[in-house]
C-alpha cells in the first residue's frame, strides 16, 4: 500500500526569543520525510507565528512509511549567518497506517531541542492517503497492531494465539562514531534520535511481516529494548506474541467464520514463548515455576552492513532461548509464559538474560461452544477491567461455577507425579484444598495473578537485592569473572526472595522480575515480585497461628521471626480463611480447610516449620546480617499496599488513578568498599528510596496504593548507583467526585455499558449532532459533559479547525502590529500579549477546556474505573536530553538543589517532565486521551562534573488509547 503523506504546518506559540536585540524570532519550519524536505515561509518578528502553510505532499511506498519518522524542524531565519535551530519533532506515523484509524493526526506538538528541552509548540496536521496494493513480494507490513500491554485491551478479544515473534536490528551508534568528535552535541543527539526512531519503525515493520506469515493480525506484549553497546554499536530488539484479535463488537457476528479458518496446529514453533502476562480463560492449564537463563558475552565493534554481527547476536539470543526451552521441557511444560529478555552492558561485556515461567498451555483454548465462551470471556473482561472487584464477582457467581473455577485453579498449581520423582528443587506437599493434589510449597512466576485463582488477604511487593564488588577489568578475563559471579548472585537472590516471602506468611510470588546489572566494579542483582498467599498452596500463616497457641519461642531469633510473621499476617490480613466469614473459599468448601489430621499442620514440629526456610538455606551460625536483612524490611505504611502487578491483590474497593510517577534516586558508593558494606548500602538506599516515595504519595492522600511498581537499577559510573522507580499511585474511589468532569462522564456511561454490553456505541453515534451544535451552547447547557468529551476526543480535528480559523485572523493582526508600528520595541514588549481581541480569549477558553480533561499516563495495562474504547497505536520514543551547563544555565533552579547534590536535579526534573509532555502531545494528536502500559526502560543519567555536562537518556513506550 503506497501512500501519500500530506503535512500542513499551521501555527506556533510560545517560541523562544532567538534575536536578543528585538526579543523576537523569525521562525520557519522544515518538513522532512525520507530525503525530501519542504520549507514554510519565514514568519517575521513573532513568538506566536502563523504559517498556514500549503499541504506538503510526500509520495512514499509503504516500506518507508513504516520505517521513516516524519521530521519537523523549527528554525530561526538569519539573513547573514546560518539559521539557528529552535527544535525538532519526530512523529512516528505508524498508528496512521492502521485500518481502523482515521489516517489523520492533528495537534500541538512541543518543539523539542536536545540541549534546551521544550521550546514552544507548533500546530500541525498530517494526513495519510493509502492506496490499495496487493503486492505479494512486499517488504512492508502495514496495519498490524502493536500492543505493549501484557494483556489484551478490553475492547479486543483474542481469537488465537500464534506464538513468539522476535527481531532485532544492529547499527552503528552516532554517539560513538569518529565524526562525533567534530560535531556539536546537538548534531549528535539529533542523529541519534533520528536513527533510533527509524530503527524503531523498521523493527516494527519486520516483526509485522513475521506476524503476517504466522497468520496473526497483532502483536501483544510487545517489548522493545535498546542496547547501547557504546563502541560496538546499537542493537534494537523487539519481542512479542503474535495473536489474532478482533474487536468485541465484531466478534458477535464474525467469530464463527474466523475460528473456522484458524489452523490450530501452528503451535509447534521453535520457541513456544508468550510475552503476555495475563491469558484468556482456559489457555493456561498448569503453571510451573519461573525459569531463567543468563549468558555473558564479549562485544566487538559493529560494522554497518556486516551480516556477521547480526548473526552473532542472533545466535547469542537463540542459545539463551534454547536454554529456557530446555528448562521448560525439564519441568514437563510445553510453553514459557510471561517471557522477557534483558541485556546489561558495561564496556565490552554484556550479560544477556531471559526469564519466563514454565507452563502448560492449551493452544486449542479457542471457543468450543460459542455461547459459553462468550460468557466466560465477558467474565474475563469484567475481572480484568476491575481486577480489584474480583471477590465480589465471585460471590455473585453460582456455586457450581465456583467449584469449577476452583478445581481449575487448583489444577493450575499441580505438580505432575512424574516430576516429583525427578531431581527437582521443588518441594511438594498436598494442597490444603484437596489433599490428593500435590502442589509446590512455594511458587515463583513471572506472570500476573490469574483471574480465577483464590488467594487470601492482600499482596505486597517483595524485593531481594544482592551485589558483589568485582575488580575492574577488560576483555576475556573480565567476562569470565562476571560469568563466575552470576550463579552466586542468582542463588542469593532466590534464597532471599524465598525467605522474605515465607516470613511474610505468603506462599507465592507473581510478576517476578529479576535483573542483573553490570557495572565496572560491581554486579547488582535485584529481584522484585508481588507476594500473595494462595489458597491452593500450603499456608504458612496457619502454621504460625498454631505456633501462637503454643508456648512462646525461646530463642530470640525465632521470637523475632515469629513476631515479624505475626505482624505481616495482621497487616496483610492473611488469617481471613481461618476466621471463615467473608471469604468465599471457606463458605463454599469449609470441609477443605485443613483438619488437624491433615499432614499439613505438622503439629509435632511446628516451630521448625515456621523457620524452615531459613534453616534449610542458611545455618543458624551463618550470619546475623542475613537475618537482620530479612527482618528489617519495612512494610508499607498503614493501610497502604504496593504491588508490581496490574492490580493490588486483595483490594476490593474500586480505585482511581491519581497519577503515574517516576522517582530517580542516585547515591555514590565507595569504589573499594567491601561486599558487606555495599550490600548494606544497597539495602538502605532501596528502603530509603521507597520511604521517600511513600512519603511523597501520602502527603496528599494518606491512604494510597502503588500498582505496577517497577525498579530499575542503573550503574552509570564507577561510583554511582541510580534507582529509578516508576509506578501508578492509586487511591480509593471516593463517592463524592472531586473532578466532576471526569466522574460525570464515568457515571453516565456506566449504565450504558451495563445494559447492552457494547462499549460506548450510543455515544459515538451521537457524535455528529454534537458536532453541529455550537460549543458554547453545549458548555452552557452543561447537561452532557460526557458527550462533549467524546466529541472532543474522537474528533480532535473539528475543534482544531475551528481554532485554526481564529488563529488565522490573529496572525494577520500580529503581522500588522509588528510591521506598522515599526518600533519593534513595542512589539517585543507585547510579544506575549499581542493576541489581543476576543478571538484569542476564545482560544484560551478552549484550551482551558482541554486542560480540564487531563491526559492520563499509566503503567498499568488498563485504566482504573474507565474503559478502553479503542487502541490507537503504540508509542516508542527514545528521548535524549543534554546540557553543557549543569551549573550556570538559564534553566537551572538554584534554590532547589540539595546542599550535598551535584547540581543536576533540575536537569533530571526537566527531562522527566518534558518526556511526559512529549508523550501527552503525541497521545492527544493521535486522537487518544491516555497512555497505558507505560514503561520507561533504559533510563540513564550521565554526568560529568568536570565538564559541567549531563546527559539523560529515556526510552519510553506504551499504548495510545482512547478511554471513556
Amino acid at each position, binding site marked *: 500500500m503506497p501512500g501519500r503523506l500530506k503535512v500542513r504546518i499551521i501555527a506556533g506559540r510560545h517560541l523562544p526569543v532567538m534575536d536578543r536585540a528585538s526579543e523576537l524570532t523569525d521562525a520557519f519550519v522544515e518538513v522532512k520525510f525520507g530525503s525530501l524536505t519542504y520549507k514554510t515561509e519565514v514568519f517575521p518578528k513573532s513568538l506566536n507565528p502563523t504559517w498556514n502553510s500549503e499541504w506538503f505532499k510526500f509520495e512514499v511506498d509503504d516500506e518507508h512509511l513504516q520505517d521513516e519518522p516524519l521530521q519537523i524542524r523549527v528554525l530561526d531565519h538569519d539573513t547573514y549567518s546560518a539559521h539557528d535551530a529552535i527544535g525538532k519533532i519526530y512523529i512516528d506515523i505508524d498508528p496512521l497506517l492502521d485500518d481502523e484509524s482515521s489516517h489523520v493526526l492533528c495537534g500541538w506538538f512541543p518543539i523539542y531541542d536536545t540541549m534546551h528541552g521544550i521550546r514552544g509548540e507548533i500546530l500541525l496536521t498530517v494526513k495519510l492517503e493509502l492506496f490499495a496494493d496487493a503486492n505479494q513480494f512486499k517488504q512492508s507490513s502495514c496495519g498490524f497492531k502493536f500492543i505493549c500491554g501484557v494483556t489484551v485491551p478490553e475492547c479486543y478479544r483474542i481469537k488465537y494465539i500464534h506464538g513468539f515473534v522476535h527481531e532485532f536490528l544492529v547499527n552503528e551508534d552516532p554517539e560513538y562514531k569518529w565524526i562525533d568528535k567534530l560535531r556539536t552535541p546537538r548534531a549528535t543527539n539529533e542523529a541519534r534520535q533520528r536513527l533510533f526512531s527509524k530503527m524503531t519503525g523498521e523493527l516494527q515493520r519486520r516483526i509485522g511481516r513475521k506476524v503476517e506469515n504466522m497468520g496473526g493480525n497483532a502483536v501483544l506484549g510487545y517489548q522493545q529494548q535498546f542496547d547501547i553497546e557504546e563502541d560496538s554499536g546499537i542493537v534494537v530488539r523487539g519481542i512479542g506474541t503474535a495473536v489474532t484479535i478482533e474487536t468485541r463488537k465484531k466478534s458477535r457476528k464474525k467469530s464463527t467464520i474466523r475460528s473456522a479458518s484458524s489452523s490450530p496446529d501452528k503451535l509447534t514453533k521453535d520457541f513456544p514463548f508468550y510475552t503476555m502476562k495475563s491469558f484468556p480463560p482456559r489457555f493456561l492449564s498448569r503453571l510451573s515455576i519461573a525459569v531463567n537463563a543468563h549468558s555473558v558475552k564479549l562485544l566487538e565493534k559493529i560494522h554497518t552492513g556486516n551480516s556477521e554481527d547480526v548473526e552473532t547476536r542472533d545466535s547469542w539470543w537463540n542459545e539463551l532461548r534454547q536454554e529456557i526451552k530446555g528448562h521448560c521441557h525439564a519441568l514437563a511444560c510445553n510453553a514459557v509464559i510471561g517471557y522477557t529478555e534483558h541485556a546489561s552492558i558495561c564496556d565490552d561485556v554484556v550479560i544477556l538474560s531471559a526469564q519466563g515461567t514454565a507452563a502448560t498451555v492449551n493452544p486449542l483454548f479457542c471457543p468450543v461452544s460459542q455461547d459459553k465462551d462468550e460468557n466466560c470471556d465477558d467474565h474475563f473482561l469484567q475481572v480484568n477491567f476491575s481486577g480489584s472487584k474480583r471477590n465480589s464477582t465471585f460471590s455473585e457467581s453460582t456455586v457450581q461455577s465456583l467449584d469449577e473455577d476452583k478445581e481449575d485453579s487448583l489444577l493450575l498449581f499441580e505438580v505432575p507425579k512424574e516430576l516429583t520423582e525427578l531431581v527437582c528443587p521443588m518441594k511438594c506437599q498436598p494442597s490444603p484444598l484437596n489433599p490428593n493434589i500435590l502442589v509446590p510449597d512455594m511458587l515463583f512466576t513471572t506472570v500476573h495473578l490469574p483471574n480465577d485463582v483464590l488467594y487470601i488477604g492482600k499482596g505486597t511487593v517483595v524485593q531481594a537485592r544482592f551485589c558483589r564488588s568485582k575488580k575492574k577489568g577488560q576483555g576475556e578475563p573480565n567476562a569470565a569473572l562476571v560469568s563466575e559471579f552470576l550463579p552466586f548472585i542468582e542463588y542469593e537472590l532466590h534464597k532471599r526472595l524465598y525467605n522474605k516471602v515465607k516470613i511474610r506468611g505468603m506462599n507465592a510470588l507473581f510478576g517476578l522480575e529479576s535483573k542483573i546489572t553490570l557495572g565496572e566494579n560491581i554486579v547488582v542483582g535485584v529481584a522484585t515480585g508481588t507476594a500473595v498467599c494462595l489458597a491452593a498452596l500450603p499456608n504458612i500463616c496457619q502454621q504460625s497461628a498454631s505456633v501462637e497457641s503454643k508456648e512462646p519461642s525461646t530463642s530470640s531469633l525465632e521470637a523475632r521471626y515469629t513476631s515479624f510473621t505475626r505482624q505481616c499476617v495482621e497487616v496483610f490480613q492473611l488469617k481471613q480463611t481461618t476466621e471463615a466469614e467473608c471469604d468465599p473459599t471457606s463458605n463454599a468448601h469449609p470441609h477443605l480447610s485443613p483438619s488437624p489430621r491433615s499432614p499439613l499442620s505438622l503439629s509435632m514440629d511446628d516451630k521448625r516449620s515456621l523457620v524452615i526456610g531459613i534453616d534449610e538455606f542458611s545455618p543458624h551460625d551463618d550470619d546475623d546480617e542475613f537475618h537482620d536483612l530479612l527482618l528489617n524490611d519495612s512494610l508499607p505504611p498503614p493501610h497502604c499496599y504496593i504491588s508490581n502487578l496490574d492490580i493490588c491483590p486483595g483490594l476490593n474497593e474500586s480505585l482511581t488513578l491519581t497519577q503515574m510517577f517516576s522517582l530517580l534516586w542516585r547515591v555514590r558508593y565507595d569504589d573499594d568498599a567491601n561486599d558487606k558494606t555495599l550490600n548494606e548500602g544497597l539495602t538502605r538506599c532501596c528502603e530509603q528510596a521507597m520511604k521517600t516515595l511513600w512519603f511523597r504519595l501520602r502527603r496528599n492522600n494518606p491512604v494510597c496504593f502503588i500498582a505496577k511498581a517497577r525498579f530499575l537499577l542503573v550503574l552509570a559510573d564507577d561510583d554511582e548507583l541510580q534507582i529509578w522507580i516508576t509506578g501508578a499511585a492509586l487511591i480509593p474511589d471516593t463517592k463524592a467526585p472531586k473532578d466532576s468532569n471526569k466522574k460525570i462522564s464515568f457515571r453516565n456511561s456506566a449504565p450504558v455499558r451495563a445494559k447492552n454490553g457494547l462499549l460506548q456505541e450510543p455515544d459515538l453515534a451521537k457524535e455528529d449532532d454534537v458536532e453541529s451544535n455550537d460549543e458554547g451552547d453545549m458548555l452552557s447547557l452543561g447537561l452532557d459533559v460526557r458527550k462533549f468529551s467524546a466529541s472532543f476526543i474522537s474528533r480532535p480535528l473539528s475543534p482544531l479547525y475551528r481554532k485554526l480559523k481564529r488563529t488565522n485572523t490573529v496572525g494577520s493582526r500580529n503581522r500588522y502590529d509588528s510591521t506598522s508600528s515599526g518600533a519593534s520595541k513595542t512589539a517585543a514588549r507585547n510579544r506575549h500579549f499581542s493576541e489581543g481581541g476576543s478571538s484569542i480569549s476564545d482560544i484560551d477558553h478552549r484550551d482551558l477546556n482541554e486542560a480540564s480533561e487531563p491526559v492520563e499516563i499509566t503503567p498499568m495495562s488498563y485504566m482504573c474505573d474507565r474503559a478502553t474504547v479503542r487502541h490507537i497505536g503504540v508509542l516508542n520514543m527514545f528521548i535524549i536530553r543534554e546540557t553543557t551547563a549543569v551549573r550556570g544555565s538559564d534553566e537551572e533552579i538554584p*534554590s532547589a538543589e540539595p546542599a550535598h547534590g551535584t547540581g543536576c536535579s533540575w536537569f533530571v526534573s526537566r527531562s522527566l517532565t518534558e518526556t511526559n509532555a512529549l508523550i501527552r502531545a503525541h497521545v492527544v494528536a493521535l486522537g487518544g486521551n491516555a497512555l497505558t502500559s507505560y514503561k520507561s526502560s533504559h533510563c540513564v543519567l550521565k554526568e560529568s562534573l568536570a565538564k559541567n555536562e549531563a546527559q539523560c537518556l529515556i526510552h519510553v513506550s506504551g499504548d495510545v488509547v482512547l478511554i471513556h
Partner: protein
Amino acid sequence: MESLPDVDVFVGNIVSIDFAAYELWLEQAEAEEARDYLMKLDKDEHKEKEGREFLFYSYVLDQFRIFGMLEPMLHYPTMLANQMTYQISMDSQKLVISKYYALDEVVVREFLGKKLNKSTRRDLDEICAKTQKKLKYCQRQFDNCRRIFKAVEDMSGSLVKNIQKHFQLPLSLSWDYAAVVFLANHRFDCSKRKLSCLGFRDFVECSKFLIESWTHSQTDCTDLPQEIDPEFLHDLRSVKILVSEQKLFDKHKNTTVNKARELLHLSELKGSDELAGTQWCEASFRPLSRGIVGIASCLYKSKEIRDYFIDIFEKVVEPCRTCGWDKERVNMFLQCYAAAAKQLPQIEQLSLTWDKYIKTTTKCILQIYKK
C-alpha cells in the same frame, strides 16, 4: 555507600502543588526553613523521628523545583493555561497565579506612584530594610507590578479588564494592580511624609474613583485607557471664578451655609456646643473653598496632577482636622459645597465637569480622612 542521595527527583504526570510550600517559596524561604516549618505543621505520629528531616527536605526541594520551573510561565499567565509541558488542574493554575501576584501591601505601598524603572528597582534594598522582608521578595513584588505595567501600558480597552484577562487574576486583585499601574503612570506623589499615614488600600480606593470617573477606562473602545480626560481637565480651569469673583464667592458661601443649616435641622446633628449652628461652616469656608478650587483649576498641568493627593491632604484634610471635624461633618460640608456651587448660574454650564470633579474628590477626601 552514602546514605544521602545526590540526586533525588520525583516527577508525576500531573503536577501537584503543595500550597503551603508554595507560599514559603514565594516568601523566598530557604529550603531548610521551609522544611522546618512544614515539619512543625505535620502531625503524623506514625513517622519515626530520624529520617523525617530528610524526607521533608527532599519533598520541599521537589516542590521548589516545580515552582522554579513554573515561574517563567507565571510571568505570562495566559501561557500557563495553554502550555503543554506541565499538566496542572485548572483550580491549581488559578490559585498558583493569584498567589504569585498577591500584593504585599506594605512593600508595594513604598513604591506607589514611583516610576517603575530600573533605578527604583535598585532602591528596593531600602524598602526591604524598612519592611523587614527579603530583597528578592520585594523585587518579585516590584517585578510583578512592572510586568503588568509594561504589558497594559499600550493596550486599548478597559485597564482592569486587560489586567484581568492577560494575567488571569481575580477582579479585586486586578483592581489593585490597575491602581498601582495608574498611580505609577501619572506618577502620583504618594511618598510625602504627610501621606505616610495612608495605607495601600487608601490609594487603591482613591485610584479606583479616579479611574472610574476621570478616565475613559470603563468604556471598552478607548486607545488610551489610563489617560485622564484632557477635555475635562481643561474645562475644570473655569471653576476658578468660584474664588476669584468676590460676589460669586459670597453667594456660594451663603448657599453652602444655608444648605448646611437645612441639613442640620433635618438630621438634628449632635455636637451642638461649640460647633452649633453654622459657625463652623462659615469659618472654614474660605480656606477650604480656595483649596478645593485651587486644586481643580491647576489639574491641567501634569505636574499638579502628581500632587493631587498631597494637595487634597494639605488643603482640605488638614484644615478640617485642625477644626476637629469628624468624617460625617466633612462629608456634609462637601455635599453642601458641591450642591451650592451647582446652583450658581456661572457654574451651571460646567455642572457635568464640576460634578465629575467634586464627587470624585469628595470620595477621595473621605477615603483618606482619618481622625
